[in-house]
């Protein structure tokens, strides 16, 4: 019975979103078949388009993993965007101002510092939540503004490129680049790091005592404190790991794609990561699948816009709709969650 309801609910969600997409396409006066064709061409049309989906999925998976780890501990980290930018700052800094290192060591150090600074950025709201029960939702959002605008200041002042009037840092040394995996496409080693991280996060969450504590605290903190598991410690640990993974997303974008720090390197990866974690049910494997799916949706929508003029923002509308439907789904499966008082 429950299984039947699950299947029906997912079919219903699929139907509603498809219908909404179709209505939107028709509303802008476009042809459905043409729109659909260009949508799928944007994903599967060529080897290049496929690799672009993977390039897009890389930061989504990394930041999505971060959000998932936090959500498992019931630490609602809305700040992956800011943590991602801080990771980008750290990676650029290490790349620019620590010269004369073997490349492998230099790359590793840059990624590690990206993890660290992103983690620290989430650790502050994590500590405030653990110690004083201050809402992490508000704080992580506020830290997004701070991080994003800090990047704006950095690329105009201390980290700016003196040879260019544009607000951006100098370019990293050419060889300081995550290995390209299928030249001439942009597919880079970040994807391998993202997939590796999803295995590590799975291992961390489900095979270590740390993960056991984090998952337990997320489901019932009260029972955990009765059993002697520190709720505070686990919120802090999960925030650190969460921010670190989002930070990795930022460093991987710098070292794999942009090669320099500038504003707007993230088209809201950090926010979309929340949707990725939600769709992936906070499970590392689910996050990988959801990251790929959302990336495909976005790339398809971009191509659709170029070829048929249907605005790419249709993908945002569909994502928003998906989230609402998925959150509402549980009331369909379990209609009366609190009948008795």
């Amino acid at each position: 019975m429950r299984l039947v309801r699950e299947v029906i609910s997912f079919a219903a969600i699929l139907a509603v979103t498809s219908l909404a997409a179709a209505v939107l396409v028709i509303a802008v006066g476009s042809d459905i078949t043409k729109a659909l064709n260009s949508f799928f061409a944007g994903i599967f049309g060529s080897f290049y388009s496929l690799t672009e989906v993977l390039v897009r999925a890389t930061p989504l998976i990394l930041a999505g993993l971060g959000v998932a780890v936090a959500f498992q501990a019931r630490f609602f980290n809305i700040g992956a965007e800011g943590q991602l930018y801080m990771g980008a700052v750290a990676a650029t800094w290490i790349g620019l101002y620590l010269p004369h290192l073997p490349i492998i060591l230099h790359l590793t150090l840059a990624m590690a510092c990206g993890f660290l600074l992103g983690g620290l950025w989430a650790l502050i709201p994590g500590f405030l939540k653990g110690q004083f029960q201050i809402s992490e939702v508000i704080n992580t959002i506020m830290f997004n503004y701070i991080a994003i605008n800090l990047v704006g200041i950095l690329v105009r002042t201390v980290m700016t490129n003196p040879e260019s009037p544009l607000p951006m840092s100098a370019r990293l040394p050419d060889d300081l680049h995550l290995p390209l995996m299928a030249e001439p496409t942009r597919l880079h080693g970040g994807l391998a790091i993202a997939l590796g991280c999803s295995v590590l996060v799975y291992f961390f969450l489900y095979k270590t005592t740390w993960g056991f504590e984090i998952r337990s605290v997320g489901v019932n903190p009260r029972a955990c404190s009765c059993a002697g598991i520190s709720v505070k410690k686990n919120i802090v640990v999960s925030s650190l790991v969460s921010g670190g993974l989002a930070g990795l997303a930022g460093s991987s974008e710098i070292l794999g794609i942009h090669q320099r720090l500038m504003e707007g390197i993230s088209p809201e990866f950090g926010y979309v990561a929340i949707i990725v974690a939600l769709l992936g049910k906070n499970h590392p494997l689910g996050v990988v699948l959801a990251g790929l799916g959302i990336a495909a949706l976005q790339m398809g929508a971009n191509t659709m816009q170029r070829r048929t003029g249907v605005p790419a923002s249709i993908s945002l509308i569909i994502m928003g709709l998906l989230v609402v439907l998925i959150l509402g789904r549980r009331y369909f499966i379990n209609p009366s969650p609190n009948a008795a008082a």
Partner: protein
Amino acid sequence: MSLLSMQNITKSFGGLYANKDVHLTVGKGEIHALLGENGAGKTTLMNILYGIYQADSGSIDINGVAVRIRSPKEAITHKIGMVHQHFMLVSTLTVSQNITLGLREKGYPFTDRKLVDRKIARLCDEYGLKVRPSDVIAAISVGARQRVEIIKLLYHEAELLILDEPTAVLTPHEIDSLFNVLRRLRKNGHAVIIITHRIAEVMSIADRVTVLRDGQNVASLDIEETSSSHLSELMIGRRLETLTRPVTASGPGSETPVRLSAKGISLYGETKKILDNISLDIGRGEILGLAGVDGNGQKELAETLIGIRKSDDGQIILDGKDISHLGVKKRKGLGVAYVPDDRHHDGLILDMDVVSNLMLSTYDQSPFSRKKLLNTKVCREHATKKTLEYRVKSSSVKAQVRCLSGGNQQRLILARELHGYPKLIVACQPTRGLDIGAEAFVHKILLQQKARGVSILLISADLDQIMALSDHIAVIFEGRITGVLKNDGKLELSQIGLKMAGLTGAAA
């Protein structure tokens, strides 16, 4: 003709009866006490009267006319008002604004505040309720907030006032003035229902009393025809089945070496002491029963002993070692086990599986994990073994604990907490809500542990259970130990009952 008559009220939640064929009749100018233990169905009955719940069957007559009350709003039109245990006030608004909240006064939305304030002042004078209409709720005391709630009802012209555990949050002095207010209300023809589990209050303020037990009527009596000890007997009740406590080698008596010693433990709440200078000793292989009506500090004492709460005063000594400053984990490591009263919130993680719940205290010990790495295979085997040993029935060890029955959930907690040979078990209401079979199993396990020399603090509102299992019985009332009695077979239930009601002086 009575003001209120509730007949054959029945209400069940998920197959469990909260009220079964309950009758209640209240006349004009009467203070009627609704007496019963926690979970006896008092609040459910009143929530039905106030329209928060709908009865499954039964009828409500007001002034002889049958009515249906579907919401608190309808209750108010029938001139019924209720003061909940947790006040329903907006703390950032003034007294006067809170009182008129939801009302459309003359001139609304441009209410004439001065006119309202004058009306409130008049009500305050009439009933001796000291409150300033312009004060902000956040700035006034708990007692004053309660007075605001009462004025709110009078302002709404309620004729029948329901007060849910009104004295629970008050100091003795405030209780006196509340009772004076209630007497004035009675004089002016209002009817008052007060929900309580305190017998002394019933005797001092009520005209009539209705006793509920396990959701059913036990008695409705005039105060003149009853007594404290009679009421305590009615409220607590007796069960026919008796348990026999086997005499063990390490049997009862103070001659056994002390395992746990609590010395002068105090815990301060916002308005009063939750625990007041509690000193208890438990010997090896001894069961100390802690009797008392729910909410007199039992749970707080248990949590202090376990380390979830830190006491403001006093020492906890386990086997000669001061453990007062250790956290929960360290205390558990020293052999303290905890069976909490609230299985669903404190004891288990309902949305996780049997395996995870079984290792909630031991996941970080060998062989369940080494160097932070979980050994899932060992954990699963352990779970299979324990579920067999403690007869936990579940479809598999990977099943969610939510799907288990209450009895099986409790067995699961026992299996976890008794793993690794504890020295002390703090068992808080260990059989609450369990069926007879599961209850017997819990009793058997506790006695087995006692035979092994484990010391047990058995906190229970079930006096029969305490009488049957304990070597000594301590009684707690309002955070104080009102007496420690030796359970030598000559003990009378009424002796404990009176101490539970705080009547230390009056010997039975």
